[in-house]
């Protein structure tokens, strides 16, 4: 366990024992500096964190950063190559697409779509998966058997095919894609929160809370949940990356986010016909997608290393 979560352990144990008198135990000061040193000593985590922050900044500042309207079609300037190409120009740094829309502006706005999809889908699936997993882990027995069966069934369903079919039936849009992915990707949350809760179930502070007659929702929300968040944050990052990749895949196959929205997967699909002579039309959105998913994965891997008992794995 990391410094921060082990302190949460003690804090909740104390709270469970004497909730009225003991307030929050403040985190010891040296722990923070040790934590920051750990974060920045881990190269992958540092790179991932920086790239994710850049992506968030780009998404928030897209209207300021984008040189053009991402939807404006400049029919006279179609398929302008990027600036490093001999016929490129600084007015369209990354060139334009087949409708004359500025590629850089579309790319910047596309960050918003990917991040929103990743974040909201991961939150929806997190709520579903964690609820199932905590219940299965805490109660065990028949509840566990039923929930494990549901998870097994969900794992056997081919996600891409089911998502494609449902997106096509519901008429793909940003909203339906987010909801669909949220409803499909909760399996890892359930598996992880179940196994962590199983380990916590018999710990002293849970026993203490039970003996004191704390209500079941109180125990689950105030004692169990805070102590599994470390593991859950890792899953959130991985599932965000998963959702972003799946959205791009659905949009690429034409069943996800619909035009004219600047989804990166859609940009690759729209550029596919031109890739033989202008390979940058698929290279640019592809690299953006790759970097964002890479950054989130690095962040998740780094957080897992920090969470692991021995520090780095």
């Amino acid at each position, binding site marked *: 366990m990391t410094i921060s979560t082990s302190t949460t352990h003690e804090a909740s144990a104390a709270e469970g024992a004497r909730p009225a008198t003991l307030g929050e135990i403040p985190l010891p000061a040296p722990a923070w500096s040790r934590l920051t040193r750990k974060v920045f000593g881990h190269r*992958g985590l540092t790179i991932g964190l920086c790239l994710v922050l850049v992506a968030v900044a780009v998404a928030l500042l897209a209207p300021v950063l984008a040189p053009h309207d991402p939807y404006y079609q400049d029919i006279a300037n179609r398929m302008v190559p990027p600036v490093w190409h001999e016929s490129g120009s600084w007015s369209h740094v990354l060139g334009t697409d087949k409708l004359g829309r500025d590629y850089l502006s579309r790319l910047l706005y596309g960050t918003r779509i990917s991040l929103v999809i990743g974040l909201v889908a991961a939150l929806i699936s997190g709520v579903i998966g964690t609820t199932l997993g905590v219940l299965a882990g805490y109660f065990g027995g028949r509840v566990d058997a039923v929930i494990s*069966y549901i998870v*097994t*069934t969900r*794992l*056997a*369903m*081919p*996600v*891409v*095919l*089911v998502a*494609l*079919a*449902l997106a*096509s*039936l*519901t*008429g793909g849009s940003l909203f339906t894609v987010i909801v669909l992915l949220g409803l499909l990707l909760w399996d890892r949350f359930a598996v992880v929160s179940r196994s962590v809760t199983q380990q916590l179930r018999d710990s002293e502070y849970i026993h203490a809370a039970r003996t004191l007659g704390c209500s079941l929702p109180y125990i689950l929300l105030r004692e169990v949940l805070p102590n599994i968040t470390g593991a859950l944050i890792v899953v959130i990052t991985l599932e965000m*990356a998963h959702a972003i*990749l799946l959205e*791009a*895949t659905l949009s*690429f*196959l*034409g*069943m996800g986010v619909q035009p004219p929205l600047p989804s990166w*997967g859609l940009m*690759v699909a729209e550029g*596919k016909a031109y*890739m*033989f002579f202008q*390979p940058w039309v*698929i*290279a640019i959105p*592809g690299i953006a*997608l*790759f*970097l964002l*998913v*890479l950054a989130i*994965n*690095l962040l998740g*891997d780094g957080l897992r290393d920090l969470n692991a008992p021995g520090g780095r*794995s």
Partner: protein
Amino acid sequence: MGTFIVRRILVALSVALTISIVSFMLLHLSGDLAASIAGPEATAEQVEQIRIDYGLDRPIVNQYLEWLGHALQFDFGRSYYYQSTVVDLIVDRMPITLTLGGLALALAVCIAIPLGVVAAIRRDTWVDRLALLFAVIGQAMPSFWFGLTLIVIFAVTLQWLPAAGSDGWQHFVLPAIALGYYATPAMMRLTRTGMLEVLESDYIRTARAKGLSARSVIFKHALRNAVIPVVALAAVELGFMLGGSVVIESVFSLNGLGQLAWDAISRNDYPVVQAVVLIIALFYIVLTLLADVANAALDPRIRTR
């Protein structure tokens, strides 16, 4: 061992049944099938006519039970689009998807296991870091984009391999790489952590103390134990790849099960969609079942759990 296998088979069968129910309900309840089939220009009367013609007006439970009764006799009905039965279509397309999945898995295993072993033996050296980098890149690469990039490089620029079609083995090289790379990182990481764990165990120390050669210790004693969970993962990954092959088949215009499913989805050919989802799920279920049994056979501790 016998009861373990019987219990696992019963669970597998009920999971398959549940999936058939869930996918049937999802397809029938998430939109108006009759309206989708009729298309956007159809009048209300035409939609009603289709609803009656296709039997979509009856209670959904009756529709499902009828479908199940036929499905149990390997009859998945007729395609709305093609002039043939769904079973014929699937049998026709299956070999391509299985070839692709099998090649991709073979490729992934051949890269992942040696790389994982070397990374574990040479822990914290540049070899280990390079292996990790390879895995991290593979996990972040969108497979459709990787496939397109392979086409641009190897089929268009270098002209070494064909970009599309499924006539000869050359057509499967690029798709198998694109699909296989996706499955490699997880297997490599599992081999690496498994090897690291085993190499620190007491019996390996004993084997070393006996004076066995490093080669014998690593391959005969360590790898055998480290590879057990990788076998299970490989089976699961093959199941995922068969489901995910829809993307790669579309990129490389391979006429397999995935392409069939995608065409069927865009043409609202629901009997085909329903059947392909179930077939892919069945593959996954059988593969995980085999992996569990193989695991239990290799590692007696699992059986008693």
